[in-house]
């Protein structure tokens, strides 16, 4: 029986930790710091509640439990499946979105914490008939194979170029360190970011 209890502990996600307290991991501690930045005193959950998320400029109403991540909410409930769930732990960057102009891992942010913030997803880069130059740049430079890491990489690159409009090759290598690819597309990724930087200036 004790073994089974052990399993239970193993299976508790970090969201479970935030909700249920108990042991504090590094990741949970970070999330708690963010939580402390919120207005104190308001108790939310554990039941689902309706929130409004500002996604790509549109207010979207959605019912979430407090433990749900922004990533799962986008994917499972809001039909925004460009961001992918891969490591689910803030390592690989496949879930990258831009929140209040900051490149963020959607797997490591609760949906509740995204309320009132401007969320940009990969879908915004081809919205309203306009295509951001980083999208074709990934194709032109074959910066993708299976493509599962690609939307996250594209969003990380977009955020990087927003901050660094004139990047050097070395800066590109430093700037995209938060994303991982298994097929090995980095040679193309570096070229794609440089190409997009040129196009953005033109």
């Amino acid at each position: 029986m004790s073994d089974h209890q052990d399993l239970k502990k193993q299976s508790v996600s970090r969201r479970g930790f935030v909700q249920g307290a108990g042991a504090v991991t590094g990741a949970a501690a970070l999330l708690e710091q963010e939580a402390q930045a919120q207005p104190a005193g308001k108790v939310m959950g554990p039941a689902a509640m309706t929130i409004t998320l500002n996604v790509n400029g549109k207010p979207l109403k959605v019912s979430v439990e407090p433990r749900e991540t922004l990533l799962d909410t986008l994917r499972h409930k809001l039909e925004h499946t460009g961001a992918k769930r891969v490591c689910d732990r803030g390592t690989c960057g496949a879930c990258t979105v831009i929140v209040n102009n900051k490149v963020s891992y959607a797997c490591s942010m609760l949906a509740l914490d995204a309320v009132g913030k401007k969320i940009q997803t990969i879908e915004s880069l081809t919205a309203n008939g306009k295509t951001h130059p980083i999208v074709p740049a990934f194709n032109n430079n074959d910066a993708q194979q299976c493509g599962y890491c690609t939307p996250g990489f594209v969003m990380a690159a977009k955020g990087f170029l927003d901050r660094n409009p004139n990047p050097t090759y070395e800066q590109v290598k430093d700037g995209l360190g938060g994303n991982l690819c298994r097929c090995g597309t980095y040679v193309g990724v570096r070229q794609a970011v440089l190409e997009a930087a040129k196009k953005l200036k033109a």
Partner: protein
Amino acid sequence: MATYTWPDMKNRKVIGQRLSRLDGIEKSSGKAKYSSDLMPDGLLHAVLLSSPHAHAIVRSIDTGAAEKMPGVKSIRVVAKAGTEVQWAGAEIAYVAATSEPAARDAARAIQVNYEVMPHFVKEDQIARAGNRAKAAGEQVTGDVDQGFKDAAAITEGEYAIPVITHCCLEPHGQMIEWKGEQINFYPSTQNVSGIGGDLARSLNVPASQIKVHMDHIGGGFGSKFPSDNWGKECANMSKDAGGAPVRMYLDRAQELTIAGVRPSHFAKIKVGAKADGTLTAWESTSWSTGGFTGGGMAPLPYVFTNMPNKRLNHTAVSINGGGARAWRAPNHPQASFLTCAALEDLAAKLNLDPIEVFSKNVQFTPRAETYIRQLKRAAVMIDWQKNWHPRGKGGNGSLKRGLGIGIATWGGLGHASRCLAKINADGTVEIMMGTQDLGTGTRTCIAQVVSETLGVPMNMVVVRIGDNSYPASGASGGSTTIGGISASSRKAAVEALDQLLDLVAPQLGVPKDQLQAVDSRISVKGNPDKAISWKAACQKLGPKSIEATGENNPKQPGGLINQGVGGIQMADVTVDIETGVVRMNKMVAVQDCGLIVNPKLAESQVNGACIMSICAALMEERIMDSVTGRVLNADMEFYKLAGVKDIGEIQVEMEIDEVNDKRGVIGLGEPCAVGGVAAIANAVANAIGVRVPSVPVTPDRVLSALYGNRMERMA
């Protein structure tokens, strides 16, 4: 039976062009729908409860409390009372519920009592394996003792390459719905045409009831052929829930624990050579594990297979760990590392340049000329003459630079493939094939072949793949896809064109064998002004369309496909002997090939393979915990992959020329993924002057090799 050929290299307009992939914008805009992106109305989310124990008997399992939890629609117990589980992560039960959190809550409420049994999870010390070790028996060729007597130098070394995982970014899993008779199956698979039959067998239903569809796959690397038990159980849960769609993907820890591994390889290798480097004898004692059922046997000595006087002993070790699955070029990267490491150690002992030793011994390979050419070319690309130094003579500073060599071979014959080509009256062409695009560019290559064959622009060709209602095409494994699909689509397009030429030949007043389809026109050979436009030709079809099939049969390959390539990769690294950190400066790959349909996509394959090799050489290792029996690093933080900054510069040269082109199409995905680990490990040895016996070459292993305490550090 017509004979089929490829158009001459110099006359081609589309094949051989560096075109961007057809589905590239779809992918880079996030619009591409992988099976794991499908979220239909009424979707149920399923999760897997897996065993915390590496070896245990399930004494009882109670799902009563879980069944009563909100949102729960179905629970399937895999490990019923009495089941012996043999690895941590083994499947215990599945739960489907209206949301993923609800399913997780319910999975945690399942009460399982285990009788824990002793486990064995680390194979590095063969002496501890006891009855978990199964010897394959000794293989002897020639006179080994005499061979060692003839040697001017003999080296003995121990080398190890660990179990690694596939770490597909899209985890294993599927969305599936069982409605009435029909099962709609949306897997993440390398095997669109075959996986339906596999699921049918496990569910004991006719294969005709299973409709498979998949537009994109987020990585497979050899691990995604079967429908797996999760396919079966999710189908059953859908049935339980009245046909509601059920979605289940392994979480990351499960993906890295039970979704397949590449077997480890440990070897003690003794090798002898004459003073000029010519090999005289080889003796290896090796062992490996791929999980509970044991491990594969790397072909040793690799590539130099015809060398005289060999004695091989191999032992497969069973551990309580998740099972092996094919991993890009099964057994080859391990064999290449073991062999090339031993050869470079021998070269160092003989005070010879390893290029000389490799060159001296290519006589023992099936393709000496290829390897000589490649060694020379790679040496130029990596500036060997300037940057290489004898082992350990890397200067006085704490940063030591070194170069190393890795060698590869592979077959790559195209698999069985059938293709249906349809020419419509509006001039569009549809291609239907039950294949899949793993990210290699299969869609794009099919379209290039058809566009070339019919003389129409790429945008007139609609490629329909990823569905088992199309003509069957082989699973994508072993670099068999490009040969299979290029041959079948070439043949189907040739046959379809033949029918169209029948239709237009009377108007142009010549026999059809004097007609050609080029530049969107059907014209008379040698008199291109006498022509009819492609559109006008197709309009003659009226309400009909042309349909033709093409088939590739690997047993009768004909002139379109071929097999057998070699490859050389070289690495240039800098090692900090104070911290043990290895930095990649450069990697070069010279890759033998056949006809290359799209050099841009081919180079991406090789670039990617070099990067995968960097991961395996410097970072990747599945670490088992002897105490708990579990994988310690079943996440992407501690199961390390290289990032964009870790790879140095990569330079790829595809050996595209008329001679190679005439061989026909040969698969590429595996051969380029073989030699890199050896090259990097050898470069480290060259840099620091001693062999780091185990990959990945992590900083602690570099420091152990340099300063001792190795056994203590590795224990």
